[in-house]
């Protein structure tokens, strides 16, 4: 296996990589700009970041592993309830609450994964949907734990690192969200660059062939599902800590649907789509609801129709096309 340096070079370049570039600074540059320019909208900004983390988690499962799911709210909800219960009964310290929620989400993925991931396509969509619906019903039934329709409330969240109080204007929550988003993003990036990351892309492309190469496909997908579940749970936990409220709505079907719409709007399989899609969706929904509280979904629907028609690869696809055209124009 003595390959010459040039040969090695050629092959190294042939491995696609989610390289660290100036592009990666953009989301956080935007976070800083938004903080300066739109100070009164900080809670909305935090909401965007929570959904971006959730969409990132979904991108790992769907965009990289090809796991078609309409039940990711299950993990979001598990994270939210874990963080809420932790704050109520164990400790009001926020970071350990996130860790506990991530572990709960990961375990939920490890438990549900083997049940659903041996299937694909529509069957998989239905099974993920069924699991999320069952969790919603369980949360509704065991009122002594979850508070039923009233949800969990009345818990406090201690200052971040013992220093920064969660203020009414939402400044601490905003930076807390930005920090957690950075951690989840760079962990996701490392994951998709790893040998495991290549293996799950192989499974997405051709699972039968992966088995014929000797890879236990279901087991690899379960691991990916658990990691995605842990990140989705972090998003749910953030929401629980920032809003100081956990309700049944965190487990609802519409949450699974919304995050899928965000990811498709932004573009799957690139990690960046999560930022763009979550920003567009949350801001659009908020503005449309301000204009017309009962018909805001109409605007979201219209944008989705236009996106599917004119930007099938999402906003990331549009940007990549424009960049490619620009580069060709210069060459």
């Amino acid at each position, binding site marked *: *296996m*003595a*390959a010459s340096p040039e*040969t*090695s070079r*050629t*092959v*190294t*370049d*042939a*491995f*696609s*990589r989610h390289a660290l570039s100036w592009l990666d600074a953009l989301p956080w540059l935007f976070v800083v700009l938004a903080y300066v320019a739109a100070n009164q909208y900080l809670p909305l900004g935090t909401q965007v970041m929570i959904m971006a983390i959730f969409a990132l988690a979904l991108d790992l499962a769907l965009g990289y592993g090809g796991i078609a799911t309409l039940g990711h709210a299950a993990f979001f909800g598990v994270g939210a309830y874990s963080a809420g219960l932790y704050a109520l009964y164990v400790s009001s310290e926020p970071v350990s609450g996130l860790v506990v929620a991530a572990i709960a989400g990961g375990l939920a993925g490890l438990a549900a994964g083997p049940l659903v991931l041996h299937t694909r396509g529509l069957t998989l969509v239905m099974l993920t949907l069924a699991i999320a619906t069952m969790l919603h019903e369980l949360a509704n039934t065991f009122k002594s734990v979850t508070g039923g329709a009233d949800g969990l409330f009345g818990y406090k969240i201690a200052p971040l690192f013992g220093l920064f109080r969660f203020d009414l204007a939402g400044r601490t929550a905003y930076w807390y969200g930005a920090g957690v988003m950075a951690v989840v993003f760079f962990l996701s990036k*490392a*994951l998709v*660059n*790893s*040998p*495991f*990351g*290549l*293996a799950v*892309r*192989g499974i997405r*492309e*051709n699972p*039968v*062939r*992966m*088995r*014929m*190469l*000797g*890879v*236990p496909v279901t087991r*690899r997908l379960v*691991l990916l599902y658990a990691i995605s579940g842990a990140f989705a749970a972090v998003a749910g936990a953030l929401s629980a800590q920032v809003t100081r409220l956990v309700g049944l709505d965190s487990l609802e079907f519409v949450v699974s649907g919304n995050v899928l719409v965000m990811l498709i709007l932004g573009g799957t399989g690139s990690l960046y789509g999560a930022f763009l899609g979550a920003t567009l969706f949350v801001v659009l929904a908020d503005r449309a609801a301000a204009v017309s509280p009962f018909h805001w979904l109409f605007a979201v629907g219209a944008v989705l129709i236009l996106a599917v028609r004119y930007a099938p690869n999402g906003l990331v696809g549009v940007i990549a096309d424009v960049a490619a055209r620009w580069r060709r124009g210069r060459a």
Partner: protein
Amino acid sequence: MTPPALEIAGIDKSFGALHVARNISLALPVGARHALIGPNGAGKTTLVNLISGLLRPAAGSILLTGIDITHASPERRVALGLARTFQISSLFPGLTVAENVALALESRLGLDRRLWGSVRGRPELVDGAASLLETLGLLALAGRPVSDLPYGQRRLVEIALVLALEPRILLLDEPAAGVASVDRGVLLDLLLRLPEALTVLVIEHDMSLVFRLAQRITVLVEGAVLTEGSVAEVRADPRVRDVYLGSRPHG
């Protein structure tokens, strides 16, 4: 006495009323070059699917170097040294040629569950893929997505994938089908240079390739073994000419 590399005994399989494998038995000693021929629909690919674990037989047993794998998962069979190619190119179309080969290398080296480090940073993946692609003359295409490649070159990538697994038993399902004559030379060259200890079972319609590559030939007709023998014996057998060689042009 060393057990045969691959031993099939009394394999039976039906799809509904269609009997696709009838009491097939076959034994390949280590290092064998064995060809499976027969008219279309004779059950050749079915037999390869049964050996590789995509299908399960209704009766009979399959032994890999003496180990019963009749009910083993496909992954387990690969772990025991079995690899196969597919008649209809079955690769990872959205990934580059180098990534396709790296997937096979990852599987052999147990790296497919490694969550840390980068693919680029692993010399065993980079150099392993580089030397395989160089051998197959595919180095210039390393960075191209497989979906961009013409059919013949995809077949060569198929071969690169199974070679990356360093198997002990290799099943080749029509490796030359659809390959242009230019690439056919490269392919035959490559198949003739396979390690001697490797046991090869090849399905192929191109008789010139079969006669150059194989030592023994099994003729399948309607799911059953018509005859088995050396290349010369099979070529001389009038029944074989009737059902296959005579009635149908090559290719």
